[in-house]
C-alpha cells in the first residue's frame, strides 16, 4: 500500500489538478488569461514528472497494475494533453468554461490512465466510461452550435449502445469463465463458441472506440461537430489510450484466442484502411477529413497489432507517440485558421503559403508525417507497424496496407497542393500566432522530425517490456 504514491502517481497527479481546478472554479477568482498559463504549467510539470520514478507493480488486488511501459504510454497521453492546452489557447481563452473544459479533459485522461492500468474487466469498463462520458459532454461545448450538440448526441448514444454491447460481452465472458480478472481469464479460455461470441462483443466495443470499420461511423460526425480541441482529443488521445489497452488485452488476456483475433484484425484492418481512405478522398471539411484520415491510420495500427509479439507493442506505442505530434499539429493548424477566419474547408486553404509560411510548413510536415513520408517520423512509425505486421508472412495483407499508404498520400497531398500550389484570390489573412501556440507547433514540428531520427526512442520503448 505504500507504493500507492509511486505506482499511481500519474493518476494522483491528474486527480490533484482536477480538484485544484474545481477549487479555483468554485472560488471564482481567476480569469481565463491568468488561469490558462497556470494550467499549462501544471500539465507541464505533470508531463515531466511522468518520466521519473516509474516502476512495475500492482495495487488493489491486481485491479490496478503498472509498468514502465504503461507509465510511458500514460506519459504519451500526458504529452498530448499538454500540447492540447497549448495549441488551442485561442479557443480556450474565448471559452466561458475553460476550467470545466480542463476538468473534463483531465477526468477523461484519468479514465484512460485507469483503463491502461486496469487489471480486470470492471475497472476497464468503468474507466472506459470515465474516459467517454466527459468527452461526450465536451463535444457539446460549442454550446451555441447545433452541430456541436448533434455531435455530442451521436457520441453519447453510440457509445451507450456500444457500452451495452460491451457489457453484454463481458457478462457472457464472465459467465463462461467465471472471472473478470485479466490475470485469470487466459487460463479459462478454451475457444468455445460462446467465448468467441463474447469476445466478438468485447472486440466490437474496442473497435467502436478505435473507430474500426464498420464500427466507425460515429467518428466523422462527432469530430466535425465538436470543438476542434475536443476532436483532436478524441482522435489522438482517446484513440491512443484505447489502442494501448486493446493491444495489451489482445496480447495478454486473449492470447489463447490469437487465431481468432489475428484473422479478425486482418479483415478489419483491410476494411478500415480502405474505407477510411475512400471516405477521406472527397472530404471538404478539414475536421471531417482528419476524422477519416485518422480512421485510416487506425487501420495501420491494426496492422501493427496483428504481429502478436513485443515488436507489435513497441511499434504501436511508437506510432502513437508520433501520431500525437502529427495529428495534433494538423488539428492545431485547423483550429488556428478556424479561429481567425472561420474557415474550415480545404479549398479555403488555397494560397495559405503566401500569407502564412510557418503554418504551411508545419501543416505540410504534419501531413507528410501522417502520410508516412520520410524524413518525418511518420515514415518510421508506419514502417514499423508494417514490419510488425509482416512477421506472419502474409504478403497480400502487407501489400494492401502498403498500397493504402499510396491512397492516403493522395489526399494528404491534396491539402499540400491547396496550400502550396493553388492560387487564391482571397487567401487566409496573415495570422499572428500566440506564443504558446507557436511553442506547441515547434514542439510538434520537432517531434515530427526528431522522433524518427532519434532511433533510441524506439529502442527505449522496446526496452521497456
Amino acid at each position: 500500500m505504500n507504493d500507492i504514491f509511486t505506482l499511481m502517481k500519474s493518476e494522483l497527479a491528474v486527480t490533484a489538478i482536477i480538484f485544484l481546478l474545481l477549487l479555483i472554479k468554485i472560488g471564482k477568482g481567476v480569469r481565463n488569461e491568468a488561469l490558462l498559463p497556470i494550467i499549462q504549467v501544471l500539465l507541464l510539470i505533470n508531463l515531466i514528472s511522468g518520466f521519473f520514478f516509474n516502476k512495475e507493480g500492482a495495487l488493489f488486488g491486481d485491479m490496478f497494475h503498472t509498468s514502465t511501459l504503461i507509465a510511458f504510454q500514460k506519459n504519451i497521453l500526458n504529452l498530448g494533453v499538454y500540447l492540447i492546452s497549448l495549441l488551442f489557447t485561442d479557443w480556450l481563452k474565448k471559452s466561458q468554461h475553460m476550467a470545466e473544459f480542463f476538468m473534463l479533459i483531465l477526468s477523461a485522461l484519468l479514465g484512460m490512465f485507469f483503463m491502461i492500468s486496469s487489471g480486470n474487466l470492471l475497472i476497464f469498463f468503468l474507466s472506459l466510461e470515465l474516459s467517454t462520458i466527459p468527452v461526450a459532454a465536451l463535444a457539446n461545448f460549442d454550446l451555441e452550435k447545433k452541430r456541436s450538440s448533434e455531435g455530442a448526441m451521436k457520441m453519447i448514444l453510440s457509445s451507450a449502445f456500444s457500452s451495452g454491447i460491451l457489457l453484454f460481452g463481458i457478462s457472457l465472458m464472465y459467465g463462461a469463465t467465471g472471472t473478470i480478472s485479466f490475470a485469470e481469464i487466459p487460463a479459462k479460455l478454451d475457444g468455445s463458441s460462446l467465448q468467441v461470441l463474447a469476445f466478438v462483443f468485447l472486440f466490437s466495443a474496442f473497435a467502436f472506440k478505435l473507430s474500426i470499420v464498420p464500427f466507425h461511423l460515429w467518428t466523422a460526425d462527432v469530430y466535425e461537430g465538436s470543438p476542434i480541441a475536443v476532436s483532436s482529443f478524441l482522435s489522438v488521445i482517446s484513440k491512443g489510450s484505447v489502442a494501448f489497452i486493446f493491444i495489451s488485452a489482445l496480447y495478454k488476456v486473449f492470447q489463447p484466442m490469437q487465431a481468432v483475433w489475428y484473422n479478425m484484425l486482418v479483415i478489419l484492418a483491410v476494411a478500415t484502411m480502405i474505407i477510411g481512405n475512400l471516405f477521406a478522398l472527397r472530404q471538404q471539411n478539414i475536421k471531417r477529413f482528419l476524422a477519416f484520415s485518422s480512421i485510416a491510420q487506425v487501420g495501420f495500427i491494426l496492422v501493427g497489432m496483428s504481429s502478436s509479439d513485443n515488436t507489435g507493442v513497441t511499434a504501436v506505442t511508437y506510432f502513437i507517440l508520433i501520431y500525437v505530434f502529427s495529428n495534433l499539429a494538423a488539428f492545431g493548424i485547423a483550429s488556428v485558421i478556424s479561429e481567425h477566419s472561420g474557415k474550415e474547408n480545404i479549398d479555403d486553404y488555397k494560397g495559405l503559403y503566401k500569407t502564412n509560411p510557418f503554418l504551411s510548413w508545419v501543416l505540410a510536415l504534419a501531413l507528410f508525417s501522417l502520410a508516412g513520408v520520410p524524413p518525418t517520423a511518420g515514415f518510421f512509425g508506419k514502417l514499423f507497424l508494417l514490419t510488425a505486421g509482416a512477421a506472419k508472412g502474409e504478403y497480400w495483407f502487407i501489400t494492401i496496407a502498403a498500397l493504402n499508404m499510396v491512397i492516403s498520400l493522395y489526399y494528404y497531398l491534396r491539402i499540400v497542393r491547396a496550400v502550396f500550389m493553388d492560387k487564391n484570390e482571397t487567401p487566409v489573412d496573415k495570422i499572428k500566432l500566440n506564443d504558446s501556440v507557436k511553442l506547441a507547433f515547434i514542439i510538434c514540428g520537432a517531434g515530427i522530425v526528431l522522433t524518427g531520427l532519434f532511433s533510441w526512442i524506439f529502442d527505449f520503448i522496446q526496452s521497456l517490456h
Partner: protein
Amino acid sequence: MNLLLLLIVPLLTALAVLLSANGRQVKWLSFIGSLAQLALAFILLYTFEEERATGNTAQMLFEQRYPLFQSLNISLHFGVDGISVVMILLTAFVSIAGVLVSWNIEKMTKEFYFLLLLLGLGAYGFFISLDLFILFFFLEISVIPKYLLIGIWGTGRKEYSANKLALMLMGGSALILVGILGLYFVAGHSFDLTEIAKTTIPGNIQMIVFPLLFVGFGVFTALFPLHTWVPDGHSSAPTAGSMFLAGISMKLGGYGCLRVATYLLPEGAKEYANIIIALSAIAILYGAFATMMQKDLKYINAYSSVSHVGFSLLGIGMLTQTAITGALIQMVSHGLMTALFFAVIGMIYDRTHTRMVAEMGGLMKVMPFIATIFFIVGLCSLGLPGLSGFVAEMTVLVGSWQNNDVFHRVATIAAAMSIVVTAVYILRAIARTAMGPIKNAAFLQLKDAAWNEKLAAIILVAGILSIGIAPNWLNELLRPAAEIIMNRIAGK
C-alpha cells in the same frame, strides 16, 4: 573516405540555404555546396581507386556501421563498390548542373534550392546505403521534393503530373516495402544487404519477393507499362526538376532493380528474366516509336528516356556480366545525357517560351552555343561513338548477344533496332528546332546561353565525353561489381 561526408555536406548546404537571407546568397551557397559535392565525389573516386590499387578486393569499401533502431536490427550501414561510386559521381554532376541552370528562379528561390539539395541528399544516401531500410528511407525521401518541385515551379498540367508522379512512385515504393519486409524476415531479421546476400533464400519466397521488388523499383525507372508518370512528370517539371528526375531519380530505380532485386534474389531473377526482357524490349521500341510522334521537346525526351532506360532493364534482364555492366553504363550515360537534354530544353524554353517543335526553327543562328549542345546531346542519345550513349548501348547489346537462344536474340535485335528509330526522332527534333529557317521573327532578338548555363552544359558534356571517349575507366569500375552480382546469380 568517410562516406558520411556525402550526407553531411548536402545537409549542411540545405540548412544553410534555409537560413540564408536572400536569393543571391541561396544560389551561391547552393553552388558552393554542390561544388563541394562534386569535389567529394572525385575524392571518393580517387580514394576508391587507390584502395583497389592496394589490392583491397572487398566487395564494399569504406564500410561504416552505426546502430539505429537496434531492436529491429537496423543500422546505418554504408559502403561503396564501383557501382555506387559511379552513381555518386553522376549525382554530383547532375546536382551541380541542376543548381546552375536554375539560376534564374525568382519564385520562392530558397525553397526551390532547398528541395533540390534534398533530392541530391536522398540520392547520395540511397547509393551508399547497405541497409535496405535506410536505402528505402532515402528512396522515399526523394519523392515529395519531386512532387513539390513539379507542383510549385512546374508548367502546364503540373498538379496532375505531380500527383501522378508522387502516387505512382509511392505505389512502387509500397511494393518495394513489402519486398524488403519479406527479405527481412526470411533473412532472420536483418535488413543488411551484405547479410542477406550471405543467406540462401528459399525459392518460393524469391518467386514472390522478386517481382515485388523489381516492379517496385521498376516504377521508379519507368519499367513498361508503369512508365506513364515519366512523360507527364518530366514535361511539367521545372528544368532542374526534370534533370534530377531523369538524371538521378530514375537511376535509383535501376540501381535498386539490380542491387536489391536481382542481386539478392537470383532465383527469382532467373525465373522472371524473360518477362523483364520482353517488357524492356517492348519499352525500347515502343518508347522510341511513341517519341516519334511527340511534338513537345520535353515529351520527346521523356519518351526517349523510356526507351533508353529500357536498355538498362534489358541489360539487367539478360543476366550476363557484360550486359549488366552495360546496363550500369547506360544508367550513368542516360543520367548525364538526359539531364543535359532537359537543361537545353529549359534554356530554349526560357528564351522562346515554347517547347513545341513546330514553332521553332533555325535556333542555330541565334543561339549557336545552345544549339550545339543540343546537337551533342542529340547525338549522344542516338548512340554516336565518342559520346556515352554508344558505349552503353553497345555493351548491353554485346552482353545480350551472349545469351544463345532465339528469344534473347530476338529481343536483342529488337533493342538494336531502336538505334534507327532513335536516329529518326532525334534528327527530326534537331532538324526542326536548331536547323531550318527561323520561323518567328521575335527569335532573332534572343540571346545565347549565359555563363551559368554554359558552365552547366560544359560540366555535363565533359561527363558525357569522358565516358564516350575513354570508357574503360568506367567499365573497370563497374565490371568487378557486376561480376560479384553475376557470381551470386550463377550460384558461385
